[in-house]
Structures are given as structure tokens and as C-alpha cells.
């Protein structure tokens, strides 16, 4: 099969690129569009560091064949800060020391954004469930859970 043109709306911008059949959304973001925040960890949907929002829902972008989501809207970590200002989740991660090596951070933040979009007032259990597909090897998870709860509090009017 030949490569095909794929259109995505990525972080509020229309992007068009060529993708060979079976190319993952992750590879398209990193290699075709130069968006390097989503990481390639296990490449089999087990570690969560490639998490992005696809039409508002968190997905492991390594598992999504990009030609199957032509026309979709994608949000990556690059689209989270507004006018150069960190959003509440990013600020809470930074100030809560919720990142060490940083390899899981992009996926953690996108899982948190998805949670807070659908549930602005999560319990600790909700947060734990939301990041249960994201592996962290450094922090022991506690500071990450605390940061997401902190972000929810910051976002409340």
C-alpha cells in the first residue's frame, strides 16, 4: 500500500503530512511533526509515556495507526502551556517536585489533563485510576498524585 496524506488538528493547528500504512500516531508526532514531548518507551502500550489526547480522550499514541484517525484532533504536552505560561497541572508538577528524570512526565501530565477535563473534582482514588497506565520509575508516584490533586484545587474557581 502506498503512503497517504493524513490531516490532523494538532494543538489547535491543522497539520498535513504523509504517512506509510501502519505508522503510529506517536511516530507521526515525533518524526513527521517534530513534537518530541510524547516519548517512545515500550512501544507496546504498557508504559504510558506516549499518552496524548485524541479527540479529548487519553490514548497510548504508540498503539494508534495514524491513518485510522485522519481528521482527528490531537493535544500533546506542547499544547498545554498558554502563551508561554505553564497551566495548573504543569505548575503543580513543577512546584510539587513531581518529576525526577522526566521520562514519564509528558504522559503523566496528559493523563492528568484528561482526568481534570472530565472530572474537575477528583478523589485520590480517581487520580490513581487515571494514571494507572503510566509507569514512573523515580518518584514512587506519591508526589505525582499529590500534584494532580493540587492542580484540581488550583483550577477550581
Amino acid at each position, binding site marked *: 500500500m502506498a503512503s497517504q496524506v493524513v490531516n490532523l488538528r494538532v494543538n489547535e493547528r491543522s497539520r498535513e503530512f504523509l504517512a506509510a500504512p501502519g505508522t503510529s500516531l506517536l511516530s507521526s508526532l515525533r518524526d513527521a511533526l517534530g513534537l518530541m514531548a510524547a516519548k517512545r518507551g515500550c512501544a507496546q502500550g504498557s508504559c504510558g509515556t506516549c499518552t496524548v489526547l485524541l479527540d479529548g480522550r487519553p490514548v497510548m499514541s504508540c498503539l494508534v495507526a495514524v491513518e485510522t484517525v485522519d481528521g482527528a484532533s490531537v493535544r500533546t504536552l506542547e499544547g498545554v502551556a498558554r502563551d508561554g505560561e505553564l497551566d495548573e497541572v504543569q505548575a503543580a508538577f513543577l512546584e510539587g*517536585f513531581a518529576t525526577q528524570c522526566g521520562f514519564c512526565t509528558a504522559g503523566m501530565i496528559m493523563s492528568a489533563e484528561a482526568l481534570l477535563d472530565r472530572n474537575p473534582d477528583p478523589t485520590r482514588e480517581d487520580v490513581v*485510576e487515571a494514571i494507572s497506565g503510566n509507569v514512573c520509575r523515580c518518584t*514512587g508516584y506519591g508526589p505525582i498524585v499529590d500534584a494532580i490533586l493540587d492542580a484540581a484545587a488550583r483550577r477550581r474557581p
Partner: protein
Amino acid sequence: MAKLRGRGYASVNYPTGMNLGGDPSQALIHATTTGTFVVSLSSVDLGQGLKTVVAQCAAETLGLPMENILVDTADTDTGPHCMGTFASRGTHRVGNAVIMAAAEAREVMLAVAAEELEVDAGDLETDGTGYIQVKGAEEKRVHITDLALAAHFTHGRTISGRGIFLKEKNDPVPETGEMDPDSCQAHACTVAVVEVDDETGVVEVLEMHNAYEIGRALNPAMVAQQVEGGAWMGMSHALFESTEPYYPTRDHGPGDFNEYLMPGPADIPMYHNAILERPAGNGPFGAKGIGEMTANAPIPAIANAIFDACGVRLDTMPFTPERVLRGLDELRGNHH
């Protein structure tokens, strides 16, 4: 059938750095034209926070804000020498080297400021916000940005410094075995509270109380990160992780994250951490290393807690449900 609760503790004395054939690390510092001090190192930060701690040491010694420090750990081919980030040595070795380099750079900075302000260098001090000023006459001052420009374009000076920390080689005394293998030792104790399900064999860690004596906590928030991250890793090794579950055979070894078990965010215990500070004479601002040791005490503490809970003494990690149940069977006299 019941859930049995138990408590165990374990302690660790952990060396900071090691002896090798002599254990050095170097640092070089120079000011750019606009007064950013570049700390050049071959010591790598892979998430343990070395760059932050090193920037703190440089800023404190130079008397400048953290914003004026840029830590460059780019290239081990061209950078000053470092033995590596291992043996919990980074903060101690590299911190000391950076303090030495920054002290030399500070002397040059004050000498150039003395030329610029036409005063004696001994009368100068830093205010911590970026100014070098005359003691008791603070209106006579120069900002580091202007000073660095002047150093380059007026005085023809480099504001720079060199640093090295060397732990000298030390051989054991043949008669006694006595030697000086490390620079100092940090100490820690973990108390673990667990619940053992005597029907399923599953062990759950409910609480971990960690006390650490680490010289001086240069960055208390990062110390807390290290203690909790290490406690998690210790718990993970104690209960879950194995590349060869049936060692020495390699059967059933995990091939990916689905099979390589680790505690997730729902499995973390309640932590209570206490940091004791007794500065080490040879540490940077008194700091000892707090690195690898954080994963150590939790493992025997959990083993002891399991023993306390159900009488099963496990000496092979991980303490899987299968091993707990086999131990319980043995205690009950049910041999297979």
C-alpha cells in the same frame, strides 16, 4: 483465614563514594560576557538532581543568585574529568569540586570588581542578588552583568576557577584489614508495617517510616523525593521485581512491562520521613551522599515485618505470594 499485621525494621550504614585507585572529580567555572557562570562538568544528571545541587553550591559560594548559574554536563570527551555518578558520590565529590572552583572564581570576580570600582578587593562583598559592593558603602557597587562585560572588554580578564576533589587511594593495612574506604557514611532506618493475607499470600505494605541521617540536606525537597522514590523501589524489589523468578533457571522471566511487576500508584504505603542533619566535615556544606541507600533498608524491613506478621522467614526476593504460601505451609507441617 485472616489478614495478619506485622512490623519490622532494618538499618543501613552507607558509604559516600569509594576508594578505587583514588577517586577524583573536577569542575571548571567561567563567566560569560553577561555574567552567567558556566559550571562545566562531566558528571551526568539522569534525574537524581545533580545539576540543581551543583548550581546551589556554585551560587552559594560565588554569592550570586541561582539564575546566574548554568550547569553544563554535556560531553565527557571534552569536559573536566569525573569518575561517574555511582556510589552515591555525586553531591559529595562534585559538590566539593564546584565549591573549590567557585571560590577561585569568586576571588577573581572580586579582584576585577576592585579594579572596576577602584577599591581594595578585601573591602568588597556580594549581596546575593547580583551586586558586588563595598562593605559599609553599599551605594558603591557593580552588577555582575556589567562587571563581566568590563572584565572581558576593559580589563582583559577571565573570571574563572578550577576545582577538584580527590579521595586519595587508600590500601588496607595487611595485618588488620583496616582502611579508609569512603569519605563518610550516611545512616538510615526503615520501619515497615505490612499486612499478610494468609489465604492468598499477598503482602501489602501499609506504612513505611524512614529516618535518615545524611549530613546536611542541601535540598530538602529533593531529599524527600529520593527517600520516597527509593522506598518505593525497595518495596518493589521486596515484593515484585525479578528478571529470573525461578533462578537459576530463566523460566517465566518477564518480557515486558505487563509481566515485569512493580507497585503502581494504588500500592504505595503511607510514608513518614524524618531527616536528621549532622554535617560531615569533608562534605560540601556538610552533605553526605543520599542515593542508592534509599532502596536498601526497606527490603529487610519488609522481610522482618512479614516474619512478625505470620512467622514466615523469607530470604529470597521477591517475597511473592507463592513464597509466602509455601512458608505458611511449612509452618503448618504441610510438606509437598
